[in-house]
């Protein structure tokens, strides 16, 4: 599914995308040019806000930090680095011909 043009993404930031079933995905572009996609709902607050978190790294692992209670989630695995038993779903995502697609 096509989400947006790659120019809509900014390095080290996320955007939210609405899926046809009403669920939401947070899509991130990191500084090295790679794209990542996680469920947008923060499991700790239930709010659909992960796309609005600060992107950075913890010990080299790319993460987004929930803006509500500040837990870090790995952009690669969806695992919460502060509560290893919690994770969010990772979605396949790629950039093709200047377009961001969820796979």
């Amino acid at each position: 599914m096509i989400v947006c043009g790659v120019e809509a993404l900014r390095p080290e930031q996320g955007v939210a995308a609405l899926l046809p079933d009403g669920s939401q995905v947070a899509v991130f572009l990191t500084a090295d040019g790679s794209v990542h996609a996680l469920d947008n709902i923060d499991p700790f607050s239930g709010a659909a806000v992960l796309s609005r978190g600060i992107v950075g790294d913890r010990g080299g692992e790319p993460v987004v930090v929930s803006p509500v209670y500040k837990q870090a989630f790995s952009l690669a695995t969806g695992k919460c680095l502060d509560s290893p038993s919690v994770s969010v779903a990772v979605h396949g995502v790629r950039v093709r011909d200047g377009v961001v697609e969820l796979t």
Partner: protein
Amino acid sequence: MTRTLVVIGHGMVGHRLVDLLRDSAWRIVVFGEESRPAYDRVALSSYVDSWSSTGLELPALTGCELRLGEKVVSVDRERRVVVGASGVEVSYDALVLATGSVPFVPPVPGRDLPGCHVYRTIDDLDAIRATVEAASRPGRKSGMVLGGGLLGLEAANALRGMGVSPHVVELAPRLMPIQVDDGGASLLKRLVEKLDLTVHTGTSASSIERDGSRLIAKLASGLELDLDVVVFSAGIRPRTDLDLGLELGPRGGYLVDAACRTADPSVFAIGECAAVEGVTYGLVAPGYSMAEVVADQLSGGARTFPGADVSTKLKLLGVDVASFGDAHAATEGALEVVVNNAVAGTYSKLVVSDDARTLLGGVLVGDASSYLSLRPLVGKEVPAALLQPGGAVDVEMPADAQVCSCLAVTKQTITDAIVSGVACDVAELKACTKAGTGCGSCVPMLKKLLTECGVEQSKALCEHFTHSRAELFEIVRATRISTFSELVARHGTGRGCDICKPAVASILASLGNGHILGASQVSLQDTNDRFLANMQRNGTYSVVPRIPGGEITPEKLIVIGEVARDFGLYTKITGGQRIDLFGATVDQLPLIWRRLVDAGFESGHAYGKSLRTVKSCVGTTWCRYGVQDSVGLAIELELRYRGLRSPHKLKSAVSGCARECAEARSKDFGVIATENGWNLYVGGNGGFTPRHADLLVSDVDTASLIQIIDRFLMFYIRTADRLQRTSVWLEGLDGGLDHLREVVVDDKLGICAELEAAMASHVDDYADEWRGVLEDPEKLARFTSFVNAPGVPDPTISFRAERGQRVPVSLGIPEVVR
């Protein structure tokens, strides 16, 4: 059966005793003659700063029966009954006398004339103030303080604060004869005489007469003084007017043994009214120590009075004075090492044993910074370096040395707490050892012990920077680096995180780098700054327009009401005298702000680590009691500092008189009007750890006030840690309030011009952040719900009604997991 303890007297020592016994099985009845609960009499002089007793309050007592305003008229020791002035009789199993002391008033003819006062209670200070205010002399008033000891100088300082030029008259040949020697006292006299004091030593008042509206005092030296007010502070005498038929000590005071027990085993005496094995003490620390002894005895223990350390360190009229151990070299054969630097205005004397091996005591005037290292060494071997001219005082302290003399905590106790891992910082040390919770002068020593014990007080901001926030601030200021990516590449590692990114964004904004949502800064901002609104629990935001000083026209109020109604926003009045509008979605924010900006509103920065509000009372404009225009000043301050990014949020308030309706002393910087101008208080806080703000300057005009606030804020912004409020910053600042005053008032570091220039540039560059967004399509484009469906509302957000307004529907998370 419950036993009853009666305590006669409700001063600091009596209060301490009751507090120590609060969880015991004793039923406690306290008789207090004053109508107010016990207060911090040691800090009495600070009452003059605000004319409010709030700052002197001691923690409220629970679980005891307080009979305030009730003097005890007699005690029947046979029947074990105390009789109050109201006729009430209370039987006791144990009785503690804590009647304190009375001021000693020398038998000078005329001492009872109106305008003559003693200096002991809050009521005394109110009476002195009334006399001064009623004086008809134009300009500064004239006063005399009889007694040039510690209390006399305190009283003189209080008089200065009331606009009186004081004469200090001391019978001994020098000031502070008990604590200080001739050399130290002559320096002290020279320093205090610069402060509008006139010192007369070696003489006394022989008479006081009234002449019209004035008092004329004749001194034994032949001098005549023309006065408006006279204050006696020539020492205290134990208060024993309640006659129990008990033996008194040689210099007064109820005679007690080392257990603080009188000849009657059920009667104790503590504090200034007690003569422990014949000796009376006029300081609070020995009194506390007696309270602990009696609390222990009453709980079945066998503790005895350990003797008292009568060392003192204080700041009188801005001059450091310290005296410890055998300050007057009374020990046989004692040798003195004196360094008297008249140019620098410092004097130090060390007293050592005849073989120069043991430190016996000392006197420090002008600079008492070595007091903390020296006092614990009394009675111990004296390091040879100390006896060299300019000798280092940074010496190893023995384990049994007392670090905190207020609460008698030894170095060993502190290092044990550190080494065992119980305490890792000053706050934890305070909590578990109580050290530093009295006068606080040993806090720098606590820090030093933490470092000595190898507790690495890491300053690293996070894993990406080894620097502290203050160091990063200096790097950014010096190098003019304007992007996070350059800063982390040159001075850090990795890509940054949710700790360093907002911290650096704040530094960049404090130094003026354009709009905080500019292309290179937007990804650094915490979500609140990123959307210029406050995120709430369901992912929606709240909106707070600025209402400077809390003053608003009906037209603007109507606009806020209409916007809230049209967007269905929940409204609530905030604690900072503004209005919060809740429940806005990301895409609604620009629409809401379009309406608000068009009506003349601007961002209130409720979302930022920046100035929030300057709260005010109505002041002279309306209030019958106001003495200055508090609303006008609050608006001026709020407009000056709006948008100023800082290490943490900044709150402020202006009160139009000492009644303090704006609660300015709970703010980071609070201003209270006086008849002569403004008093500035800094470092206050509400919240988790409430703290009353400290008086930084008093009676300044508006221009000086603003100049000092400019400097204070910029100094804080430069040197504080990330998310460190001014209260915690000030608590941890080496040298504390005095150092702050030296920097921002006296310009000791020579940086005030720089700090002022930085603030001037902030004021010049200020622009409303929301207007900046509305005028820039690039920034506006970020306020969308979904990149692939702009304008479609977030389906997870829904509302229900509560008390007629919309509130979030719970998101199915039973409780907050952290």
